[in-house]
């Protein structure tokens, strides 16, 4: 169980500031929801944490130690949004998952581990020999989760992992996220634009707007009694909240 801490993080691309002085904590063993619309900087913040975006200023640390962005040991892993481009179409599921494992295991040990991980995400271990094209979107997201878990992470960032899925399949992935937190004690930063989904999985919520965190706190409080104007606007825009005229 580990805590992920963002301290005054700024990410700048040329003249554009994507993330502006964000401070955020993901407590050990908790799921923190990060909500915002496009352009809010939530995805950029996630990418900066795993080393896919340059960190202009600030500090991102895991239990006080800066998150390593080079080398084989990566305690911070990420699951991406698009299930159709997050798996290499030419590698089998087993190979994709095994690639993320730390080096130094025998082939047999790797195979056993792959089966254990697939079982953890409720996929048939025999599907380790299948290519991604045979899996549905929901199944691919589970493989992506298994791959993230293969690296033995302490914190996982889930970047809009259900946004591209059919409604009837989304629930299974969300149930899985909750289960993984419960069983593995994983800390998760759950990014989404869908407030109802975030309310379901997260215990804390942070709201981002134009690169800044405008509000954060326990999910129950923020989503029921928001104090910032923008959060109120977001809540009011959820379809179905207003009666039809």
């Amino acid at each position, binding site marked *: 169980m580990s805590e992920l801490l963002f301290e005054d993080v700024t990410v700048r691309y040329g003249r554009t500031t994507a993330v502006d002085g964000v401070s955020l904590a993901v407590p050990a063993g908790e799921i923190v929801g990060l909500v915002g*619309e*496009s352009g809010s900087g939530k995805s950029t913040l996630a990418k900066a944490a*795993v*080393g*896919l975006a340059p960190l202009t200023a600030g500090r991102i640390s895991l239990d006080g130690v800066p998150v390593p962005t080079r080398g*084989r040991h*990566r305690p*911070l*892993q*990420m699951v*991406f*949004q*698009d299930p159709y*481009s*997050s*798996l*290499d*179409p*030419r*590698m089998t599921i087993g190979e*994709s998952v095994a*690639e*993320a494992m730390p080096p130094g295991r025998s082939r047999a040990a790797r195979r056993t581990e792959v089966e254990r991980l697939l*079982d953890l995400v*409720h*996929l*048939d271990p025999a*599907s380790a020999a*299948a290519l991604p094209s*045979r899996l*549905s979107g*929901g*199944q691919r997201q*589970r493989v*992506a989760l298994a*791959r993230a878990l293969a*690296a033995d992470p302490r914190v996982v960032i889930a970047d809009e992992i259900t946004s591209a899925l*059919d*409604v*009837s*399949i*989304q*629930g*299974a992935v*969300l149930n*899985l996220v*909750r289960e993984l937190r419960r069983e593995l004690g994983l800390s998760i930063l759950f990014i989404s*634009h869908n407030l*109802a989904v975030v*309310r*379901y999985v997260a215990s804390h919520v942070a709201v981002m707007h134009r690169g800044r965190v405008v509000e954060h706190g326990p999910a129950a409080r923020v989503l029921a009694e928001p104090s910032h104007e923008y959060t109120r*606007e*977001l809540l009011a*825009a*959820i*379809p*179905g909240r*207003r009666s*039809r*005229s």
Partner: protein
Amino acid sequence: MNRRWSRVVRTPLGLTATVLMAVVLALAVLGPLLWDAGAEAVDTDNIMAQPAGAHLAGTDSLGRDILLRVLVATRLSIGLALLAVVITVVAGLLLGSAPLLVGRRFGRLLSAAVNVAVAFPGLLLALFFAVVFGVGATGAVMAIGLAGAPAFARLTQTLVAGVAARDYVSAARVAGVGRARILFRHVLPNIAEPLVVNATIGAGTALLSFAGLSFLGLGVQSPSYDWGRLLYDGIGVIYVNAAAALAPGAAVLLAGLAFNLFGESVAKALGVSTGPRVVRVGGAEPPVVEDTRATPSDVVLDVRDLEVVVPGQHGPVRPVRGVSFAVRRGEAVGIVGESGSGKSLTALAVTRLVGDDGRVDATRLELLGHDLRAPDTAVRQRLLGTSLAMVFQDPMTSFNPGRRIGGQLAEVATHHQGMRRRAALARAVDRLAAVRIPDAATRARQYPHEFSGGMRQRAMIGMGLMGSPALIVADEPTTALDVTVQQQVLDLLASIRAADDVALMLISHDVAVVGEVCDRVLVMYAGRIVEDLPAADLAGSARHPYTRALIDAVPDMTTDLTEPLATIPGRPVDPADVPPGCAYAARCPLADDRCRALDPELTGDATHRVACWHAGEPLPARHETDELVESP
């Protein structure tokens, strides 16, 4: 892969290419073995002879048979060309993938150098390198090989950049996989196909360049000879013995053709076709069954038994199978479904936008009383252009990026309503203001990329309002938009409906949106309507198990946090593989043998129709262990 290749070989192109290549390669291997002695035989009594008898192409200045020399020269010519291609591919791959390995700054310098090199004409580069490396076969191979490298490197760079941006490469980077391994394991295998095609066609070009260099005297030198060298020797005596130059020339032509055609066949086998063989769906037949019941006058859109057929890998596929509904003036009808339900195709079929390879059939398809199944005429185009407004899902691609917004809107008026350009533009500005785009006059002169996604959708609605539409068809209009922008667009649609009594057909996967905006909801599954009910009844009185499962599966702000989310086991039906009987039976807790054998009809009263043998029956309690282990 083998299947595709054998299919290609059966086409005329593939067959010719394969045969020619086989002949060329056979000659390259066997030629010197069979005819080397004959080609070297000097016969001073028979110098510069005309084609006759024993010498079908005549003899050269030393009495050697030209035809035999041409055949024997195949090996050297082909061998050198292939060697040059290998050099091109290796150098190109190295230069093209280096930016991925060396990091951003050096990578940029390298890309810039390659781009500059591409600007030089290939033959010029070849001549330059030939001077550098010296005259002779080795020098020529290096020259042609390196001259082709910049173009190949550029192609590699572009392909690598495309793949390097994909999520699986990012995931590998996040997992700590090294750059070299990412290149060899993830990037190169996924860009192999276009590169192979280019390399194969490049072989033909290399052959021709080689012949050119040798012809200029820079390539192969005596006593070795390739086709270009034979041409060089033969061109001087072309008025004495034309065959001396024409024979090697013909050989170069045929071999070059063989390589190029082979490259084309490889392209067909590998890349261009995405798999399913397009089985032509039969042409539009005149409708056999006519529905001649009179339409009530306030019905804007009347659809009966709509069916869409598209070609698929194993025969025709019916993504829409028998859809019937009607939309009245001012009414808002929502169509809800998931992937594979056929909802988008229904919208496209109704607006006559299904592509040429698909066929639309219906016993009745009328807009404002006009039959949309009739052949396309100017009158019908005007009807569709002015009485129907369409809003597409992707705001990025629904406008022409090369033209200003105002001009695109004005096109409707100039084309369909006969307005003059200035009046049409003025109306366009007026319509942009009507859809609440601030500063409409300035905005009309802007290009689509200067508009945000929400504004583009509003401009799209504005384009539909250029006429006086009776129906707006919106296919997932807000899926790609933020939730606050979505609210603005939906509010806009509501105000337009209220102001002009315009009907709305809203297609979406989002039940909440449809429930909020529409009066009536049609739920589609596997190409059929399974339930037709008032939107107010969605939450409480839905009767089809799929509708109820769909409502339960969507989390909202009041979902119970202590329970796992409801899910529907299994996955949506693939339109190419629809089971007999009710398509939902495989996922339905109430399904029995009758459901699996017989497809239920859509029955009910005027306000509520259901297609289910167990409509309205209570669903069994959800189990905790509903989370089944899934296999592909």
